[in-house]
């Protein structure tokens, strides 16, 4: 019954990385089972849920005739916009107050606070990305409304940047929420303000001068513009600055990791 010594309690970088991958994998399975269980479609809900939400929103936007102002393909507009919203929204929500219910897990030496965030974020990324992928493929193949993405690589890269940005933001908010309960109070309303501001519901080129410059301070707008540039770039003039967006991604990651370090030391027990 005594197996080999549990490895990797300490050790070198490669060993630690192996431990971390294992722990994140274990946390992912635990999270999936806890959230979706084994009943009915089980963990398929992971992407079925965001898919349903995006479809509903796409339906509403189409019905409201948001495409009247230009020749922008409205379904593609909705799928890109709302998939992006779900990515950063769900990830940030899952990281806020993530540690307290899982505090006991930290008694297991291989489990680090960051692993809990990473597992939760990967799960959201997996669900939203699958949903985005399926919707894009299905609509490209079977709908008159959407032609296939014009530049698939750009779509993939923009999505990657969006996920990266969301990770930095979510770790930052998650770590801050352990320091102050105010984060949990202000973030839900902030999400509603960010919905329209994130660039999911407009194209920068359709905004009046003056407004353009202001919204381009918001990094999410750049990610959305790039995503749509890859999808249907020939229909509009995209506005984004790659270095500005990447700068934010790196900055938020550094800040987030810094604060979570601080949180580990100052966490109330």
């Amino acid at each position, binding site marked *: *019954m005594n197996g080999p010594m*549990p*490895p990797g309690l300490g050790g070198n970088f490669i060993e630690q990385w192996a431990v971390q991958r294992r722990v994140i994998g274990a946390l992912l399975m635990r999270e999936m*089972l806890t959230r979706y269980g084994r009943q009915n479609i089980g963990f398929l809900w992971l992407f079925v849920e965001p898919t349903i939400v995006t479809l509903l929103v796409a339906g509403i936007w189409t019905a409201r005739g948001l495409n009247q102002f230009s020749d922008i393909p409205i379904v593609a507009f909705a799928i890109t916009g709302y998939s992006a919203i779900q990515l950063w929204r769900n990830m940030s929500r899952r990281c806020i107050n993530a540690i307290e219910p899982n505090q006991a897990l930290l008694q297991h030496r291989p489990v680090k606070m960051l692993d809990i965030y990473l597992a939760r974020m990967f799960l959201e990324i997996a669900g939203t990305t699958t949903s985005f992928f399926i919707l894009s493929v299905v609509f490209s193949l079977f709908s008159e409304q959407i032609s296939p993405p014009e530049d698939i690589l750009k779509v993939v890269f923009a999505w990657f940047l969006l996920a990266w940005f969301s990770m930095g933001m979510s770790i930052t908010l998650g770590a801050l929420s352990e320091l102050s309960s105010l984060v949990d109070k202000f973030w839900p309303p902030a999400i509603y303000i960010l919905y329209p501001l994130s660039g999911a519901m407009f194209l920068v080129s359709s905004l009046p001068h003056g407004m353009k410059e202001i919204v381009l301070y918001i990094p999410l707008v750049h990610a959305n513009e790039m995503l749509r540039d890859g999808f249907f770039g020939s229909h509009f003039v995209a506005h984004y600055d790659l270095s500005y967006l990447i700068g934010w991604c790196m900055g938020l990651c550094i800040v987030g990791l810094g604060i979570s370090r601080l949180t580990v030391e100052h966490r109330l027990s």
Partner: protein
Amino acid sequence: MIVLEQVTKRYHSIRGPIQVLKGVDMTVSMGEKVGIIGRNGAGKSTLIRLISGGEKPTSGSIGRSMSISWPIAFSSGFQAGLTGRDNLRFICRIYGQDAAEKLPFVQEFSELGDFLDQPIKIYSSGMRARLAFAISMAIDFDCLLIDEVMAVGDAKFNAKSKEELFVKRAHKAMIIVSHNMNYIKTNCTRLYVMNDGRLEHFEDVSEGIAMHNKMMAN
């Protein structure tokens, strides 16, 4: 070896900082059985959490050159919505062990029968404790952290878990926290008495217990 040097732990609270540990030194070598006693709130459980790595010290250092268990029979790391089997799988994954290989032992030792496939939230506290103890024993460590483990389970299970710990794992290092002085006297070779965030070391267990009793009387 586990070596603690000048370890302090401060928590932040609404009323300001609370200094729980005020400079603690401690060593535990391979195979040693070390007891920790002290009144409620002296900082024993905080110390155990720091040793297990669940929390980081405010200052000072903790060196570990042997693998250390989580606090034995500690069941609050379990996910209540998951079954006993799923919780075992989770722990095994974390520690890189094969759950299928550990299952027969946990099944037999925990005496849970079909309940192993029920969510833990419907378990009685005794069942939960049996599962937690069995899972703790399924993973192999050099040093076991034992924080008031004997407070759980019925007499029969207690006897069984004593056998599992002190007979089958007699060669392991152990750090034992208890209020039961007989238990400490029987199982420990050295003793630390915790008082107001400080540790006093006693080579002679009885001497330490006498000291502790004197403090409790005041």
